[in-house]
């Protein structure tokens, strides 16, 4: 077969969001891949210049629906760092609970899409069925299914009572049980391993050089997780970064599967140790200074660079999302693989295009 260029996207059934990859294909083998972006760029960073810094919380939450809470947490932590605000312990624990619920539903969502990328529809439906329960927990506690809208500068805006804490723990037990039933399928099923093992291998040296973040980095054997820095209440909870060594698509799936268990465990820990007290400290004055804040999102490390010059609005909010850091990895991984493996490799980095194009 002759060389042909396949426009993979921006509208493609296996891509959840608009991203274009121009694939040069020779006999079903990719020789070159160039990403084309900018289909949904919204200029949210520029919006920081005409929204006040409190209103920006809701804007950052909408950078991406799936990572919403963690964007807001990162932004608020940045401002709290600049303004020297101490967040009450209960608010820090609630942030962990909502952040981990988000990671849980995001990983289940990703696994469903991943299953869909290699044509495993029943697994896709099953995983999304489990995810629905996590969304129910989010709705019952924050009030919204996905974009919670509970994070504020200086704390959180909603509290949960003892009855809700028990209810969440019960629901999570159900989720954990369901995930345990699915686990052997993802881990051992012959057809899944056939499609994912040895595909898109990223060595640890390459991962470091290309600036990979999140599960992609950890699947290559580097145990780096921004939660280790102990922001929010992570410093008081027990966890170890989940890693794998193979660096292929199956390893990335296994890392995320391990993180689902880890998230459930972290929420249980946080619910058990949930301290009493206030949920919000008062915010006085206007921010002045600059900071770089990092938070571990489901897709990896998100970076907020915030600079404030004492005005009502911020002079610069720069958002580096995890997908932005993983696109160079994708460009590196695609050449040399078969066309039929492109969806698997593309989805293995968990591309979130709305994150990528703030």
């Amino acid at each position, binding site marked *: 077969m002759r060389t042909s260029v396949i426009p993979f996207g921006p509208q493609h059934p296996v891509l959840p969001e608009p991203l274009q990859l121009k694939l040069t294909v020779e006999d079903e083998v990719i020789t070159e891949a160039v990403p084309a972006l900018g289909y949904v760029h919204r200029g949210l960073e520029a919006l920081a210049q005409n929204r006040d810094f409190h209103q920006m919380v809701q804007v950052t939450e909408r950078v991406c629906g799936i990572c919403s809470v963690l964007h807001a947490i990162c932004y608020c932590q940045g401002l709290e760092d600049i303004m020297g605000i101490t967040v009450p312990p209960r608010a820090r624990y609630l942030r962990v609970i909502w952040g981990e619920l988000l990671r849980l539903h995001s990983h289940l969502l990703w696994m469903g899409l991943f299953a869909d990328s290699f*044509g495993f529809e029943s697994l896709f439906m099953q995983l999304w069925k489990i995810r629905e329960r996590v969304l129910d927990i989010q709705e019952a506690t924050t009030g919204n299914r996905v974009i919670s809208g509970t994070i504020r500068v200086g704390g959180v805006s909603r509290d949960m009572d003892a009855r809700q804490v028990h209810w969440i723990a019960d629901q999570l037990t159900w989720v954990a049980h369901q995930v345990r039933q699915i686990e052997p399928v993802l881990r051992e099923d012959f057809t899944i391993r056939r499609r994912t093992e040895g595909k898109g291998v990223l060595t640890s040296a390459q991962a470091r050089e290309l600036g990979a973040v999140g599960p992609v980095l950890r699947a290559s054997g580097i145990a780096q997780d921004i939660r280790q820095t102990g922001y929010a209440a992570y410093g008081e909870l027990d966890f170890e970064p989940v890693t794998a060594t193979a660096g292929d698509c199956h390893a990335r799936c296994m890392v995320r599967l391990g993180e689902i268990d880890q998230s459930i465990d972290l929420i249980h820990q946080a619910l058990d140790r949930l301290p009493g007290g206030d949920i919000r400290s008062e915010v006085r004055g206007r921010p002045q200074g600059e900071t770089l804040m990092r938070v571990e999102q489901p897709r990896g490390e998100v970076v907020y660079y915030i600079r404030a010059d004492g005005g009502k609005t911020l002079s610069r909010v720069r958002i580096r999302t995890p997908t932005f850091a993983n696109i160079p990895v994708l460009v590196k991984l695609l050449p040399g693989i078969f066309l039929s493996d492109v969806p698997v490799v593309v989805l293995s980095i968990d591309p979130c295009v709305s994150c990528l194009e703030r």
Partner: protein
Amino acid sequence: MNHALIILGIGLVAGPLLGGLAGGLDRIVTARLQARTGPPVWQPYYDVIKLMAKELVVVNGWQAFCVYSYLFASMLALILFVMQSDLLLILFTQALGAVFLAMGALASTSPYSQVGAHRELLQILTYEPLLFLVGVGIFLETGSFKISVVMQWKDPLILKLPLLFAALGYVMIIKLRKSPFDLAASHHAHQELVRGVFTDFSGPLLGMIEIGHWYDTVLILGICSLFWATGPVPMAALAAAAYATIILIDNAAARLNWRWMLGHVWAMGLALALVNLICRHQG
């Protein structure tokens, strides 16, 4: 003569009716396996009626010609089957239809369609030898390629040819476009090739392909039911059981690539078929 005309009519009408019904039941069973409710059983008919009502857009004349030829060949193959004609003739007629479909896809310049057609041809290449061996197996058992002779055979063939029936299972999975072999075109277009071989067909032409696929479904289930041709009830039961098993496999497997399909189906399918035939005719 009159009798033949009635049979011809039955073949023409029963083909799409039964094929569409099988498709509708398939969608409900698949949905239940995935913990969904699923569409109404008549959904495939609604889909085709809607496709037929759409504007006809043809990339080029060759594409339309290929679709008509595919539909005609599929119809002809089923009519020959209902008339209890020669099995070999039926197999070659349906193969012709399948090739026409791939040629129609090759007539357009879309890379998705091109790669899909390429894979479709590989699929045809993969299952045709097995289908031929099924015909040979039936011939060796009954002494004739004629379906009318097979229908009069007293013993169920599946008892003598169980491995050959398993080999036919591979053919059915490929022909019904089910995982793990839905490479050229998956049912819901969620694959790297969008809808692969069907990408550039639309409207009434796609509707005709869908009707052709119904004829193919009935034909392949008919061939499958020949393995227990002692009466209409066991025939229907065997076909239904085979179809149910394929739906189950479809929901328990990911899509694999064509290299694996070619290697595995040839190795396993041919081995099963040949072992069965050798065992039957050595002893």
